[in-house]
């Protein structure tokens, strides 16, 4: 069993190498602008891996992942100003709190499937958007909401990573851990249970799978990852703004997870790239934001139409073909 868990696969090895390369080279690639862009992209990769995994493994669509990130970020900020705990403790508590919120979200989800489930989560995202817009994110003020006007108190980043470059590395490590966490689940009994639930809930129940438990579990994991991602994002900026967590962003993250390729780790990375790096690139090239919208929307449509397994599916397919050819076998 342990052997199965640790069994290396080509795609998995490629992922670890990719993470290592990112860890080594990304922070020194392009100065402060890109360090900052890569950091937020990495946070969103973590959140995207949560939606992608729910979709690929259970066929469940969550349109509230970015909203959940907001919760993680909110809790991280709140704790930062409330208690003298280290960043890591805040991050873990925020992830757990978001996981609990994911469970709450799972309550209606247990009886719904497909589009209805997606739309219930969209309603949650709409609600969270309003809450964040109304009550804002804590910045060191008094009271439950902790909002102060005019200035804000300093945020304690992780002791290990005080510079933006170190923080980017820190986030890359966290994101890699998140990906490994999902992969470990996939290889063990929850992964099998999820696969059967995706096929048919009735068949899963007949096979002794506790459908309620496993669906809730999946929501919890997606919440955990979103919470962690939100906390990390809060850590990178030191404050958050409700504009980041609109419901349309949640829809977009799901769409990009599909475009990236929900079944593959690379898919989440591509999704994050498209979500944060591409706009940064366009902005850097001086493309007008409105035109960038058009390019982005057209690209999204094009990818959804032409790459049913996502861009990662095409890349992975090409890589498999290539490696087969190199080994001299049949493609």
């Amino acid at each position, binding site marked *: *069993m342990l052997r199965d868990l640790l069994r290396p696969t080509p795609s998995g090895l490629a992922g670890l190498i990719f993470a290592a390369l990112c860890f080594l080279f990304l922070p020194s690639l392009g100065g402060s602008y890109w360090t900052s862009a890569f950091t937020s992209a990495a946070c969103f990769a973590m959140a995207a891996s949560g939606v992608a995994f729910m979709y690929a493994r259970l066929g469940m669509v969550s349109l509230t992942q970015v909203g959940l990130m907001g919760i993680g970020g909110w809790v991280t900020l709140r704790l930062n100003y409330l208690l003298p705990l280290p960043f890591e403790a805040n991050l873990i508590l925020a992830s757990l709190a978001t996981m609990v919120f994911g469970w709450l979200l799972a309550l209606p989800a247990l009886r719904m499937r497909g589009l209805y489930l997606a739309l219930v989560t969209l309603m949650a995202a709409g609600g969270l958007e309003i809450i964040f817009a109304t009550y804002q994110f804590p910045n060191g003020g008094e009271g439950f909401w902790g909002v102060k006007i005019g200035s804000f108190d300093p945020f304690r980043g992780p002791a290990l990573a005080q510079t933006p470059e170190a923080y980017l590395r820190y986030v890359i490590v966290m994101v890699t851990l998140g990906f490994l966490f999902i992969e470990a689940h996939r290889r063990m009994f929850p992964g099998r*249970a999820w696969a059967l639930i995706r*096929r048919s809930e009735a*068949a899963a129940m007949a096979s002794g799978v506790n459908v309620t438990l496993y669906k809730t579990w999946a929501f919890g994991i997606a919440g955990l990852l979103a919470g962690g991602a939100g906390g990390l994002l809060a850590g990178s900026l030191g404050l958050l703004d409700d504009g980041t967590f609109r419901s349309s962003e949640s829809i977009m993250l799901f769409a990009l997870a599909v475009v990236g390729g929900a079944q593959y780790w690379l898919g989440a990375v591509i999704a994050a790239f498209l979500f944060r790096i591409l706009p940064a690139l366009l902005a850097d090239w001086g493309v007008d934001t409105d035109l960038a919208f058009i390019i982005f929307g057209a690209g999204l449509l094009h990818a959804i139409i032409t790459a049913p397994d996502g861009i990662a599916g095409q890349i992975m397919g090409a890589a498999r073909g290539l490696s087969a050819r190199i080994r001299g076998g049949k493609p």
Partner: protein
Amino acid sequence: MIEVQDVTVRFGGVVALNAISARFTTPVAGIIGPNGAGKTTLMNVVSGFVSRSGGRVLMDGTDLLALAPHRRSKAGLRRSFQKEQIADDLTVFENVLVQIDSIGGTWSAKRDEVRRMLAVVGLERQADTPGARLSGFERRLTDVARCLVGAPKLIMFDEPAGGLSVAETERLGELILSIHGLTGTQTLVIDHDVELIARICAETLVLDFGRRIAFGPTAEVLADPKVKAAYLGTAEVEA
């Protein structure tokens, strides 16, 4: 031994099952009846996918309907569906392993059991094949193997021979007949292939419009004029 007592099911105004009672005692028993008679509904009640408005189902004395659906599997209940339910992204081995994932036991014991049952259905060589690459018959066999693991007490097959060729049906029949000797499990089979039912089921329940119209040794049941009229159509059947 499985006992159905006074099971009634309603869908809105339709009475899909009307106070059905039957006590299955033979290793393999059949359920037949016209389309829409309520056969699948009966199995769904036993598995817990349909809520009954009355009645009980006892399996070796335990009241099955008191358990949550997924717990019934732990109590030893297995079933297959009218359409086979194989996850495309799991291997044959994993598709079977799911069944015993949530019960105790060591990993190696589970692995050996899955391998053994795959050998029984003749899929040991395909253990690592993903579900997506199986043929219809192989999918059906994987479904059977899944029902066999974990020391089941009762297996229910819903039209297992649907879409199988004559030769494949024959092989499946043999497999079903061998189950009792292998694990001591009782089997209930729904099928419209009367030949198959006649060959493998010692006793048979016949439903029509949600009512029990006959129950007893298969040969007797098939000779019953009521069954002939409602199900088989007139006379001559090679029983």
